[in-house]
């Protein structure tokens, strides 16, 4: 019931109402008691008049007596006596019983019975004294011919009574004054109490409201301070726009810095915007602000149309210095109920973000450029590409090792630059050789960077930062090509790219030559603590021309030996690499008729260890270390067919003297054929030998002797 919408002011209203009520009470009491007091004052006068009347009656009685004696007229005195006694009587009776008496001035005066025991006692005494006196006066006055005796009686009576009455009336006057005085005391007490209550009330109001006011002031101040803090520290430019597009009085400190111009409160935002943006953007911005302020649209659903979401502006910084930056203005409605009263504008410098996005787009363009890399890849011989990739990643790792090697204090970093340069140069050569033009370009870029460093001299570690960044890009470039190749290899599993393999004839596997390969493989495997299975597919070898048969038999034996010695790993190593413990040798021979025959030999061993091969080439004295470091992949692998090159550091009966594959090469050459190698380090090694059809003139070819085979 108190809830009259007064809210937090309820207490104040109640307090003030109470205050007024006290005041009103005091006023009413004051009025009431004051009127009592004024009537008491009249009482005192009237009681005083009784004393005067007593005197006057006594005086008149005595004068009448002397006039009667002197025989003079006393009519006037008689009338006065009559009048005085009547007033006196009326007054006395009025005080005893209440009634009206003639006032001391004009008009009558209402006298209330005096409710006071003492006063009544006095009045009763007076009445007792008065009654015979009055009767005597009455009798004297009413008689037609008053006698001297009567006059003397009245005079004597008056002499006696007068003293008594005077005394009594004196006492009464005093009493009445006392009563009046006590009322005045009550009045003072009431006034005092009222004032006290009002004061207390006032204090309560004061205390209560000052506390409240202070509290809300503090809250306000705190809020104000927080707003100030926010506006002072936020990195965003914040301000309000009113419905007329004017800038509000509060704004964040960052605003002027972001915009590059001051934004005075009360200024027109569009005036500030106009010089910063193009006319088209300006017009759209004006329309957009109007849309938000005055049209019934969903704020969220139009945010995409904000033309100031990303604007490029040019900011002047000092004389002659300009800076281009990207700003973002966001507009949010400030609502009061259903009405949009303001727009909150948030401004950000998004230059960094925009530039990052731009970089990202550029890198996408670069990625499209990678498509052309893909096309280049398709043009490269697969095994060459494999070799190149292996070489390149090896080279990159070498460069990274160079980087990782921390220089001793004071060491000249140029040696590091030179070492990296040499390796980069070699890979660049390889890339160009296999036809990967874009990769060659990338390494060329690294070379350029290094040349620059070489010229500058006086290098510190930090100068290699761009090299590391470039290296990461090169690693991922090589990796990308590798991934593409892997994908293509997977696709080959689905789509047949190679020519179909010839059907395996049942008799083929049982051929003695094939059985000899199998047992030779098993025998070597046992000797080297390895496990192996040889699988044969293809034509029946016995159908070959004897010359070819001999040659194929020798060649495969050499490959078997090479595979078991160098390629196939020990069972525990294979297991560790996730391969089957038993190695697999896949041999097939196909007769392409006019195109001669093809021998394919594939092992799933570790491939050719290029580092060891380089070392072997150096050991053989064919190249020095520097030369072997820059030699390209194709040339390097060709060394395995050269005499005296073996990656085994110590020779044993099966390998190490570098003979074997060179014998194969010689044999194939004699027969006019070709050898190709494909391999992936850690995965496989694949030899493909093509031999032309045998001409009858060529009757016999010396096969590789068993002694040579064992060499």
């Amino acid at each position, binding site marked *: 019931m108190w809830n009259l919408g007064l809210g937090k002011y309820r207490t104040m209203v109640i307090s003030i109402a109470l205050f007024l009520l006290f005041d009103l009470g005091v006023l009413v009491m004051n009025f009431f008691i004051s009127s009592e007091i004024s009537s008491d004052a009249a009482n005192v006068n009237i009681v005083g008049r009784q004393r005067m009347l007593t005197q006057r009656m006594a005086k008149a009685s005595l004068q009448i007596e002397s006039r009667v004696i002197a025989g003079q007229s006393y009519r006037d005195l008689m009338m006065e006596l009559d009048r005085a006694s009547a007033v006196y009587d009326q007054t006395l009776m009025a005080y005893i019983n209440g009634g009206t008496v003639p006032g001391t001035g004009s008009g009558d005066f209402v006298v209330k019975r005096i409710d006071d025991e003492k006063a009544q006692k006095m009045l009763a005494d007076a009445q007792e004294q008065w009654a015979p006196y009055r009767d005597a006066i009455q009798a004297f006055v009413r008689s037609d011919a008053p006698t001297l005796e009567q006059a003397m009686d009245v005079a004597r009576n008056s002499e006696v009574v007068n003293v008594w009455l005077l005394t009594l009336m004196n006492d009464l006057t005093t009493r009445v004054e006392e009563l009046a005085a006590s009322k005045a005391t009550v009045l003072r007490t009431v006034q005092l109490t009222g004032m006290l209550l009002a004061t207390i009330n006032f204090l309560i109001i004061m205390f209560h409201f000052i506390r409240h006011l202070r509290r809300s002031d503090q809250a306000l101040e705190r809020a104000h301070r927080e707003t100030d803090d926010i506006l002072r520290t936020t990195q965003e430019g914040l301000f309000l726009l009113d419905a007329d597009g004017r800038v509000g009085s509060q704004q964040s400190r960052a605003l002027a810095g972001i915009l590059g111009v001051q934004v005075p409160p009360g200024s027109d935002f569009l005036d500030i915007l106009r010089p910063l943006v193009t006319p*088209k953007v300006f*017009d*759209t911005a004006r*329309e*957009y602000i*109007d*849309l938000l302020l005055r*049209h*019934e*649209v*969903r704020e*969220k*659903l*139009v945010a*995409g*149309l*904000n*033309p100031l979401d990303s604007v490029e502006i040019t900011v002047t910084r000092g004389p002659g210095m300009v800076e281009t930056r990207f700003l973002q203005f966001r507009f949010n409605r400030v609502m009061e109920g259903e009405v949009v009263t303001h727009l909150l504008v948030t401004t950000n410098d998004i230059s960094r973000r925009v530039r990052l996005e731009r970089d990202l787009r550029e890198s996408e363009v670069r990625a499209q450029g990678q498509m052309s890399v893909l096309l280049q890849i398709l043009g490269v011989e697969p095994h060459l590409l494999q070799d190149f990739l292996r070489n390149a990643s090896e080279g990159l790792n070498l460069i990274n090792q160079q980087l990782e090697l921390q220089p001793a204090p004071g060491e000249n970093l140029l040696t590091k630059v030179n070492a990296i340069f040499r390796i980069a140069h070699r890979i660049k050569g390889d890339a160009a050789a296999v036809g990967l033009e874009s990769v060659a370009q990338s390494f060329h870029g690294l070379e350029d960077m290094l040349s620059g460093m070489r010229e500058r001299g006086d290098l510190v570690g930090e100068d290699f930062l761009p090299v590391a960044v470039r290296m990461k890009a090169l690693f991922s470039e090589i990796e990308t090509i590798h991934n593409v190749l892997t994908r293509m290899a997977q696709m080959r599993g689905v789509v047949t790219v190679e020519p179909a393999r010839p059907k395996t004839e049942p008799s083929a596997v049982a051929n003695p030559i094939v059985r000899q390969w199998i047992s030779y493989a098993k025998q070597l495997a046992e000797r080297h603590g390895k496990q192996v299975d040889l699988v044969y597919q293809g034509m029946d070898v016995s159908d070959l021309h004897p010359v070819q048969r001999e040659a194929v038999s020798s060649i495969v034996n050499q490959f078997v030996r090479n595979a078991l010695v160098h390629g196939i790993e020990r069972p525990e190593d294979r297991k560790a690499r996730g391969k089957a413990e038993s190695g697999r040798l896949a041999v097939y021979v196909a007769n392409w008729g006019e195109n001669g025959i093809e021998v394919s030999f594939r092992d799933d061993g570790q491939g050719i260890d290029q580092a060891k091969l380089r070392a072997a080439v150096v050991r053989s004295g064919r190249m020095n270390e520097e030369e072997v470091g820059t030699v390209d992949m194709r040339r390097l692998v060709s060394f395995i067919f050269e005499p005296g090159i073996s990656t085994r550091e110590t020779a044993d009966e099966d390998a190490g003297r570098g003979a074997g594959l060179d014998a194969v090469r010689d044999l194939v050459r004699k027969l006019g054929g070709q050898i190709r190698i494909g391999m992936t380090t850690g995965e496989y090694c694949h030899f493909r030998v093509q031999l032309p059809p045998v001409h009858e003139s060529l009757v016999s070819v010396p096969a590789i002797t068993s002694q040579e085979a064992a060499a």
Partner: protein
Amino acid sequence: MKLMIVDDSNIIRSKIARALGKHGLEIAALASNGQEAVRCFTTVRPDLVTMDLTMPNMDGIECIRRLRQINPDVRVLVVSALADKATAIAALKEGAQGFLHKPFTEDDLTEAMDELLGVRNG
């Protein structure tokens, strides 16, 4: 809630219809240009319209103006690939309540539609 889809692309129409049909709206009409839209509008009386801007036979802005004359309470979502923001703003000033940029995902569309319906629901 009855929805009318106005777009000159058949693919877009069916994409919107599929997404918003799944979202619980009744697809009341499909129109491929402004004239068709105005004709359908009077008979079907949809509550919601998705509106392309560049169409043959009366463009989207003119169409929105006509539709609002017929029913001022209709909610219109402009769905356009328009790069020119000024034109889109002009369309919104004709009385559309929101704008969705093409290309959009199904989620973009349903979110925009929920936001648009929020006008009515409070």
